[in-house]
């Protein structure tokens, strides 16, 4: 609660959306700048989808509207089977607050501009404050030459909506992030695996976050049924 005494800032501050990931928000001044487009990049199994789910559930819990766009042609039940194992996931979120959109078929049949319009229309219909596109990089494989222009148009349009969009990017184990997406986004979060073969550990690193004095360097994370992803530093 704010009283006039503590009420000293007259200038407009950046609005932020909490990520819902325990320990991460402390490293980014409380959350993602609103509106913005954030890239979550990592190789296979590093936790990108878990990150995205936790982020959406954080919004749904607060009564926000969310839009989950998959590019994988996965039927809802398939995604739900994995999503429902998490304690923070409430199936009733999918009644109205988290709207699921499968872009997979459209990617195969539509032109880039038509895809943009379909996304636009869905966003206008749902009016989400939180959007996820998971994984965005799949589009690149399908689209070929038009991909860079598509990414540019997509991120531009997304920034015009009042939402924070998390796009996930798959990379090879030796890559940090997909460079063609990185230049167009406001923030980059890396999910990393360490090199040790026996005790391979998972890390998160905030590489860039516009308008934000963010922590640098890797922080260990844990993935669990109870919390999804947590940043371990936060426990101490």
């Amino acid at each position, binding site marked *: 609660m*704010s009283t*006039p005494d*503590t*009420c*000293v*800032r*007259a*200038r*407009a*501050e950046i*609005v932020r*959306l909490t990520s819902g990931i325990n320990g991460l928000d402390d490293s980014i001044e409380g959350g993602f700048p*609103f509106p913005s487009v954030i890239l979550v990049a990592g190789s296979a199994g590093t936790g990108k989808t878990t990150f995205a789910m936790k982020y959406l559930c954080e919004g749904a*819990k*607060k*009564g*926000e*509207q969310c839009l989950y766009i998959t590019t994988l042609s996965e039927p809802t039940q398939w995604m739900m089977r994995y999503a429902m194992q998490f304690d923070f996931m409430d199936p*009733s979120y999918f*009644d*109205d*607050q988290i709207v699921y959109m499968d872009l997979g078929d459209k990617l195969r049949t539509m032109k880039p501009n038509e895809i943009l319009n379909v996304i636009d*229309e869905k966003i*206008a*219909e749902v*009016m989400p*404050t939180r959007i996820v596109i998971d994984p965005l990089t799949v589009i690149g494989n399908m689209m070929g030459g038009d991909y860079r222009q598509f990414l540019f148009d997509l991120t531009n349009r997304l920034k*015009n909506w*009042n939402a924070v969009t998390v796009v996930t990017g798959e990379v090879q184990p030796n890559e940090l992030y997909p460079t063609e997406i990185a230049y167009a986004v406001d923030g980059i979060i890396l999910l990393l695996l360490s090199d040790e073969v026996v005790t391979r550990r998972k890390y998160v690193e905030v590489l860039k976050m516009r308008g934000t004095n963010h922590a640098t360097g890797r922080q260990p994370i844990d993935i669990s049924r109870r919390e999804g992803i947590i940043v371990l530093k936060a426990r101490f």
Partner: protein
Amino acid sequence: MNEKDLYLMAYLKDNLSAFDNGPVLLDVKSTQFVRVNLLLLKAFSSMPGRPGMFIAVDRPHHYMLHLMGMHQIDPQGLIFIDAISRFAADTKNSHSPANLLNAPSNIDSLPSAIRDWAGNSPHPAPMDLQRCRFAMIDNISSLLLYNSFNNVEVFLQDFIDVLTSHARVQIPLLVDKERNCMLYEAARSLCPHEISVNDGILASMSLTSKRNGIARIVDSNEV
């Protein structure tokens, strides 16, 4: 729009109907400004013969127009005053008749322009002020990016004065109390009434709309 939106619209309409003249403060989360603006426009548009003005300082007015189209909200009778398009050089799709201000920092010129519409200005006024029933600003706190706090305060006072002296006008002022507490205090001193649209209200609305279904609730509020 889903059930929760309709429920929220009914809530806004119901609460606003008690105050048909002057400013009403709405405590709204910053992230919900666009949604609440749209729901207010929908609520107002369902009252026929109630023209109003929408002042865009946060995002070019064609975004709101696009959203209104998507949600079947009739823009008839609504005039847009756009302070951001020219400034942001974002004039695409601005085929709709909007009145452009040069920049959000020129907002202090708006009340005197409105005063001219009511008086004997040589230029044709974009609307008959006597018939104006509501006036909205998409995001007052955005004005703080381009104007001093003091100027915003003076503007709000002037804006409310000029409108209410010429007509019975509802002026919903959206402020995020938690985020912009000084602006909230300033707006509160101008507004005799307040409506809360905070997290608690939104969350309870999801629950209620899930539990009850929306049909009955909307009926009871429909005039």
